[in-house]
């Protein structure tokens, strides 16, 4: 099963490689991993999307907690939560394709950020599956390049993860 794991860790060089190293050393799967500093400048927050059965997820959470740089770990899959991802996608757009891309971007509530006579760059945010759906909808229109951030997640409600 897919899990989104949030990790608060010391904002120090090397902390990221400890987490990445743990996943590769123990053979855990990483679907996406994203990290940036938080409002508390001593902490950064990492969001990891992984897959595994309950026993593996339990081990992942325990092993993350064991890392000295890791301050807090939460499997937000266990609580109601919001998930968002950002995608920038550059599509070939000539002739009829220009209208088609424009229309699809409207439907998916994306934005066109860059236009040339043969391409569009579209920005799209939403849960991962919605970004996947957009790519599918684009269908035969050639994708020149794309970049995705990987998922971010927060639990719903007034309570949050802090030190």
């Amino acid at each position, binding site marked *: 099963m897919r899990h989104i794991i949030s990790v608060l860790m010391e904002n120090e060089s090397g902390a990221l*490689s*400890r987490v990445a*190293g743990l996943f590769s050393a123990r053979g855990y799967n990483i679907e996406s991993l994203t990290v940036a500093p938080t409002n508390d400048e001593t902490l950064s927050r990492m969001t990891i999307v992984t897959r595994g059965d309950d*026993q593996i997820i339990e081990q992942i959470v*325990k*092993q993350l*907690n*064991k890392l*000295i740089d*890791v301050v807090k770990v939460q499997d937000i899959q266990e609580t109601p939560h919001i998930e968002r991802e950002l995608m920038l996608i550059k599509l070939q757009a000539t002739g009829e394709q220009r209208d088609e891309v424009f229309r699809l971007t409207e439907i998916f509530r994306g934005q066109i950020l860059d236009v040339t006579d043969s391409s569009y760059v579209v920005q799209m945010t939403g849960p991962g599956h919605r970004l996947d759906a957009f790519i599918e909808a684009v269908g035969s229109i050639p994708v020149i390049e794309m970049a995705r951030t990987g998922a971010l997640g927060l639990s719903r409600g007034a309570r949050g993860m802090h030190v």
Partner: protein
Amino acid sequence: MRGVCPRRPWESFVELLSGAEILVRCLQEEGVDVVFGYPGGAVLHIYDALFQQDKVKHVLVRHEQGATHMADGYARATGRTGVVLVTSGPGATNAVTGIATAYMDSIPMVVFTGQVPLQLIGNDAFQEVDNIGITRPCVKHNFLVKDVRDIADTVKKAFYLASTGRPGPVVVDIPKNITDPKVKVPFEYPKEIALRSYNPTVKGHTGQIKKAVDLILSAKRPMIYTGGGVVLGRASEQLTQFTRKLNYPITQTLMGLGAYPASDRQFVGMLGMHGTYEANMGMHHCDVLIAIGARFDDRVTGNLEKFCPTARIVHVDVDPASISKNVKVDVPIVGQVGEVLTEMMRIMEHEGRAPDAESIAAWWSQIEEWRGLDCMKYQWSDEVIKPQYVVQKLWEVTGGDAYVTSDVGQHQMWAAQYYPFDKPNRWINSGGLGTMGFGLPAALGVKMAFPEAEVACVTGEGSIQMNIQELSTALQYHLPVKVVSLNNRYLGMVRQWQEFFYSGRYAMSYMEALPDFVKLAESYGHVGMLIDKPADVEGALREAFKLRDRLVFMDFRTDPTENVYPMVPAGAGLNEMILV
């Protein structure tokens, strides 16, 4: 590089020291009495500061791997943190095997590695290697010190992390410019340290402990299974009281030996791949398994699908990640084993509860029946020395009271099987990583800590050659340990597996071109003995141990075809043992 920092008014009350001096002062503050190391360019400032004091001794090894194993042996025997100092680049990479060895067995160790000056890091400088990156997967934690003012705090953290919770090695990487004698800063050693992300659990959860007591007392066929955690947690006394109080059978892992007296009736021997018949059968048929400070390693469990099929399991461990990692348990308790055992006994006493004596008596008669098989018997020979016999005689000659280190292979198993340990911290071997070359330097580390104690290294002609250069260190620091080499002219454990599982194709397990170990020992300034007749074994051992102030290398020519029994083949259940 910075010059001498300007003195501020408040600094007149504190000392101004260089980074190198601060590091040495930190070691003194931590009560470190000996550092095992090897100098080199990046640590010369530190060596200069070490040279100018006499509180912290330094042992010059012959290879950095030796330094880590010595510190490791010292730590295992004393329970204190072992300390290593090596230079950058090859000094640090040579230490990695020893760091990984300590990591796998959770041994408290602090390893200081030199590093090229900060401004050169990343430039592929001479003797530069990414120590932090290389050691990351085999340390509890590691630090790169980037400011001389951070040394004291970092050292304090390193010792705290290494020795608390589930212990382990910590690496502190120190760039050369940080120890510059010309840069002096105020020194004050922190009294306490707090890490917001590290709070090891001490006391177990009361509700869980109560549940565990209920389950333990409901047992009709109980087994107590303990590991290295009891030795590391200094909980041998509590374990002994607990086990005697319950009158339950107890088995121990390779790492746990000595935590409960092996000569006691309730001890049914080691379990696992080369465990006793009674221990493994007891595990297989028990209805309640009480696992304490053990981690359900694959050499212990055999095939997980066949492991303890009828048991409900209580597991006490200080490391939550060890619980339900390999085997799902019914009552997990995170806490220090000593604290948890004491609390369990308090509850039993307070509530006046005891086990079901009738069922336990019936269980014991079953266990005695298994024990009656005498699975450890071996065939005697008048012609060729049986390795088991050497270990038995070693036990007799040392009164069962020696510190015994071992290398890795058949001799390690025979030492574990035929030298019953009645005290903890006496049996010192690389269980997790299985590092050949561990035994001799580890023995020297033990002898450093306990100069008056008898220290024997049980080894083989394969393993001993992996760190034999430390015979030179032994002479320099007068460390008269006894080397008991079971020389069967084979990489014995490899040969045994090839005999069993590769139809006797002995690929590269035959040791051709062996040196003359007697002459080798003599050339290092020690005493060498060659023993090739069973009748001479005891006499040689007695003579060797009489030479109290000499290192004696005993080259026992043992039966080349002897195998370690019993054996649970890989993939089998604990009840599917190969007996002699």
